[in-house]
């Protein structure tokens, strides 16, 4: 069964910087096409990594899947139903922490399960906080946590809802090298465990090759799908020791405009 479909999707923004200077469309400004005719299908349980140059609209694509934004033409379907708004069965993990800073880790995780009756609710919250190893930090506020802990707390909050889809926008950005690797490992383990459809936007080619069941490369603006490959390799995987992945890595670097890779 196919879970998420993106059909003939186009998205354009209006450049308001030039608005109001002559011409009959002056009040609207110039239209800029960001995503041009995107057709994609994400199978249930797939871990898909989306790569592309910065500003190509990959985050915008995610936001439309999440229901935060809408296509100019075309549509996004989840289980054959058009996405009409944000819903709690597809949880978005924000690029810079989406935790509410005035709530503790516990209260943040509680958000997604707040309607559940109590013995079960407390148990669920405890379980997911323990899963990301934040047991001793459940009553800390986000500003008291490190970058990696913030990502893990947000992951716990997302998973506690038991969503069908996880949508992650640059989940490792701003982390130091080691934390980046650890959180990445955590996301991979989490995916092995729950097997939910997971879309990850990243700018790091190695992230995509290490994590993805499938890698999608998008071109610069107006953005189209340039490459869409499945990676039938088990995890954890060593990119350096897999010649096919190394070849793919070179190919993607070249696609993104880097021709000489050390």
């Amino acid at each position, binding site marked *: 069964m196919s879970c998420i479909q993106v059909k003939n999707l186009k998205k354009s923004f209006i450049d308001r910087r030039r608005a109001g200077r002559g011409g009959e469309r002056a009040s609207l400004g110039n239209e800029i096409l960001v995503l041009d005719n995107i057709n994609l299908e994400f199978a249930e349980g797939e871990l898909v990594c989306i790569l592309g140059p910065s500003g190509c609209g990959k985050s915008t694509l995610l936001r439309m899947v999440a229901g935060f934004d809408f296509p100019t033409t075309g549509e996004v379907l989840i289980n054959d139903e058009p996405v009409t708004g944000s819903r709690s069965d597809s949880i978005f993990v*924000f690029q810079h922490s989406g935790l509410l800073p005035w709530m503790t880790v516990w209260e943040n995780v509680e958000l997604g399960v707040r309607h559940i009756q109590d013995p079960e609710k407390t148990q669920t919250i405890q379980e997911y906080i323990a899963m990301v190893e934040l047991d001793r930090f459940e009553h800390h506020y*986000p500003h008291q946590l490190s970058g990696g802990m913030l990502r893990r707390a947000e992951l716990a909050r997302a998973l506690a809802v038991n969503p069908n889809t996880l949508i992650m926008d640059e989940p490792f950005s701003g982390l130091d090298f080691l934390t980046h690797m650890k959180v990445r490992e955590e996301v991979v383990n989490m995916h092995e465990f729950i097997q939910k459809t997971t879309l990850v936007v990243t700018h790091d080619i190695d992230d995509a090759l290490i994590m993805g069941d499938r890698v999608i490369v998008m071109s610069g603006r107006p953005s189209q799908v340039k490459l869409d490959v499945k990676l039938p390799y088990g995890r954890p995987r060593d990119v350096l020791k897999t010649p096919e992945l190394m070849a793919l890595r070179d190919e993607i670097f070249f696609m993104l405009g880097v021709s000489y890779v050390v």
Partner: protein
Amino acid sequence: MGYKKTVLPFITLFFILLLWELVTRFSGWSRNVFPGSIAVLTSMGELIANGTLLKNTVASLFRVSIGFSLAVVLGVPLGIILGRVEIAKLLFNPLIQFLRPISPLAWIPLAMLWFGIGDPPAIFLIFLASFFPMVVSTSVAVESIKPTYFQVAANFNFTRIEVLTKIVIPAIIPQVITALRMTIAIAWLVVVAAEMIAVQSGLGYLILDARNALRMDYVMVAMIVIGIIGLLLDFIMRSLGNIESTAWGRLTK
């Protein structure tokens, strides 16, 4: 380290009082025009002993608390509405921006005509002085809430009430506390002026009454008390910001 923080300001205070006394002694001015620090402190003791100071301080604080609380209770919700509802902003913002720069003191004649003599006109002036800053800061705070938080709310199916209680209100608290600090200072400035015209009590009245009696030492006592109370009010408002769930506001900006 800790004792320096408490002791050093008092060293400054001591030398200021000393300098003040010396200046009055050698300035050649009459003691009635420029009383020295010793005389003023003695008069302060007098006014404390006969209860005048306490009575007038309580009167001023009473007016400020009523006027300021009214302004907060009405101003914060209105600010939230202006920040959240586009139509409300378009309708009322121009009016508020027009009224805001009119000094509360310009309202004195109307306040006296409408509310007579006594507490009501003074409270009205304090209300006016505090209301606009509270409305404007609150609406600015609401507008500057990160869109991410509203997306989180949508993602977790928050109701409108939940958006208000779990996102909007906690998100603006740090800025509202700052606004409270600024506004209580304004209210405290205005109460002195308001009490010089419409009432028979309060620190402003004490200053006016002392001036009429040519008691500059009493004027200075009132000024000193106004300063001390101002410090205390600021301290109280500032300590609101130490509540743990508002600490993020200090650290993320």
